[in-house]
């Protein structure tokens, strides 16, 4: 029976769907299900050193003793962890020297995913002509493409290397920079942190590693596209970014997934480490398949993202635009340990149809004179549920802390929900904490006004929603901002009329 189902799944995964654009690339799967053998298989597949395997096995042992959290406002269907694949990679090919050698099928997938023309050109033009006449680089975005689980192409490597920046798939980094990876992996999000992070620690397939050396301002935006391609393959990305003293990097993460009827689990872990006077700006546009209007299909997105502002005057800025996934469980957080460190969280979360989102942030103030800003914009439509959940904690030793939180919710229609759950724990009397929250409905006056000037209903909604989310969108790098604006409109299609 099991063998039959495997064969069916395999066949389905390799079939080119007429509408769903499952692409036709040969996969190599780990056997279905999750066991110590699965963990060993993944590690062996990647040719990992013993310490990495041991680390994974320790996490797996921990995971078996844990239970999925149920404190969120999400209604999560039971997930059968034995009924999924934990590893899939495009069939081994000779190591690629340039993007020209990338499977044209993969490039075609990028096109279907709607990766902006500019960046597609960049992808295509990278090898031939990376510099302008005056010697400056032509594009300011480097893409590390994660296709399913294995990184197939990394661009701009040379220019980054000249600056001393390491930008690698994490599998490569484990082999090439074992000391750096070992020093920081699991230091921000410990193996036992939470159910999904622990699972990720055991079975993470690939992801990205970035190291910015002391005093270096990364010469371009770094970008990774994630894409889930194989049916039933859980995605367990692992990202680790270390910004050494006085350095700066802006990192972009964009995600999409093809049409699917079966739910897919995604449990990523992102760890950021920021040393003295360094800054990381981390921007996400998340647009995975949200399921259809009846809530069938869609990605389950359980993500643990955390930054450790270890150094004095260090800074982390999270910006996220969350429009996809059937379920989003995600709280990009900042541990503000260094004195004078700064944490920011700017979020737009859109839910439509039957989507559920429970998202927010945690700002943990440990150092003196640490500051944090939280701006959250939730937009609910259809029969969806959208929750902001945030924690601001001030430790007894943290003098002179300041926090400003603003949570705004916008409702479209009368069958959706918006919830705000702020937790504030202050143990130092010098702290100044501000919290503002609003909930509003998109008004008929606004819609009619915009329509009477020539915009159709959907364009009018998109415009009003973009205005509502402006404070967050303007935090995004330019190229991303344009994409994100369009995405908000697209995500709300069918929500009025």
């Amino acid at each position, binding site marked *: 029976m099991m063998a039959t189902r495997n064969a069916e799944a395999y066949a389905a995964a390799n079939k080119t769907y007429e509408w769903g654009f499952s692409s036709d690339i040969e996969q190599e799967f780990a056997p279905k299900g999750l066991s110590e053998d699965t963990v060993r298989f993944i590690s062996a597949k990647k040719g990992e050193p013993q310490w990495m395997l041991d680390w994974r096995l320790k996490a797996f042992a921990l995971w078996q003793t844990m239970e999925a959290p149920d404190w969120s406002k999400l209604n999560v269907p039971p997930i059968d962890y034995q009924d999924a694949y934990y590893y899939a990679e495009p069939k081994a090919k000779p190591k690629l020297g340039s993007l020209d050698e990338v499977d044209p099928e993969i490039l075609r997938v990028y096109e279907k995913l709607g990766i902006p023309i500019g960046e597609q050109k960049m992808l295509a033009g990278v090898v031939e002509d990376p510099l302008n006449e005056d010697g400056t680089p032509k594009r300011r975005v480097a893409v590390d493409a994660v296709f399913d689980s294995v990184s197939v192409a990394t661009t701009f490597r040379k220019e980054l290397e000249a600056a001393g920046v390491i930008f690698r798939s994490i599998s490569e980094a484990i082999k090439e920079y074992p000391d750096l990876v070992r020093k920081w992996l699991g230091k921000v999000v410990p193996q036992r942190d939470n159910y999904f992070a622990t699972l990720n620690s055991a079975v993470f397939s690939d992801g990205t590693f970035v190291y910015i050396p002391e005093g270096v301002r990364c010469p371009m935006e770094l970008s990774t596209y994630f894409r889930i391609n194989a049916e039933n393959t859980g995605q367990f990305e692992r990202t680790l970014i270390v910004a050494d003293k006085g350095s700066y990097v802006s990192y972009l993460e964009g995600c999409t997934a093809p049409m699917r009827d079966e739910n897919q689990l995604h449990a990523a872990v992102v760890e950021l480490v920021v040393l003295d006077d360094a800054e990381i700006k981390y921007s996400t546009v998340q647009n995975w398949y949200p399921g259809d209007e009846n809530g069938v299909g869609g990605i389950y997105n359980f993500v643990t993202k955390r930054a450790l502002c270890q150094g004095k005057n260090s800074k982390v800025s999270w910006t996220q635009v969350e429009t996809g996934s059937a379920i989003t469980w995600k709280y990009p957080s900042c541990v503000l340990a260094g004195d004078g460190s700064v944490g920011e969280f700017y979020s737009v979360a859109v839910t439509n149809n039957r989507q559920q989102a429970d998202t927010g942030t945690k700002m943990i103030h440990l150092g003196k004179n640490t500051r944090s800003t939280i701006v959250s914009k939730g937009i609910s439509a259809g029969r969806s549920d959208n929750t902001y959940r945030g924690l601001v904690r001030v430790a007894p030793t943290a003098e002179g802390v300041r926090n400003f939180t603003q949570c705004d919710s916008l409702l479209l229609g009368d069958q959706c929900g918006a919830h705000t759950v702020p937790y504030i724990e202050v143990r130092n009397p010098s702290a100044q904490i501000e919290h503002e929250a609003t909930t509003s409905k998109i008004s008929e006056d606004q819609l009619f*006004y915009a*329509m*009477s000037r*020539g*915009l159709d209903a959907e364009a009018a909604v998109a415009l*009003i929603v973009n205005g509502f989310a402006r404070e967050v969108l303007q935090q995004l790098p330019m190229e991303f901002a344009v994409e994100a604006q369009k995405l908000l409109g697209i995500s709300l299609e069918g929500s009025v009329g």
Partner: protein
Amino acid sequence: MLKIENLHAEIDGKEILKGLSLEVNAGEVHAIMGPNGAGKSTLGYVLGGRPGYEVTSGSVTFDGVNLLELEAHERAAAGVFLGFQYPVEIPGVSNVQFLREALNAQRATRDEKALSGGEFLKLARGQADLLGMDYDMLKRPVNVGFSGGEKKRNEMVQMGIVNPKFAILDETDSGLDIDALRVVGDGINRIMRAPDKAVLLITHYQRLLDYVEPDFVHVLADGRIVRSGGKELAQQLESEGYVGIAA
């Protein structure tokens, strides 16, 4: 240009317009006056295509097209402009962005080429100059934090940018001081006084008509036009009030 015949319209099951007929030809300015609750704003909303206002019988044609079959944005593209009594605030969206998107949407519906950012800005600044509006206000979110007078001035700037064939101006004079009234009145004349254009001015008071001289004045009472005349009718209303005339 515009022909309204025996128009009946209701909102929430309550009939407001009860057999209104009116014909407006190109080159004409018509003023609609009348007491509160007569149906003046409803007429504007019905012509503008506001959802929720249901036409139960009668017809409205605009340049021979059945206007009632068009959605609000299609009416805009066809050349109908509705100036709001209470212009609406749209936080986070700049005037420039709003108007450029709206104008280009209209142009797309008419199969015209979109205006580039530069072309649009030039057009918008030209109109702002003519109406004495600061460029700064073009960059500010639509109507947010604008005074009553600034909002009305902004409506006129919008009208100048859109350059419609037919404008319905709903109490554009309310909330204006004397100086602003003159600026707005001049704007209406400049933008809309043309042989191929027409205006329907909805107003309570005679004072706007000192600046924008109507060719016809109609008194709307209880959902119908009860009296029509020339501009002298407005003066008569001003001195005698609606009570005697509408009865």
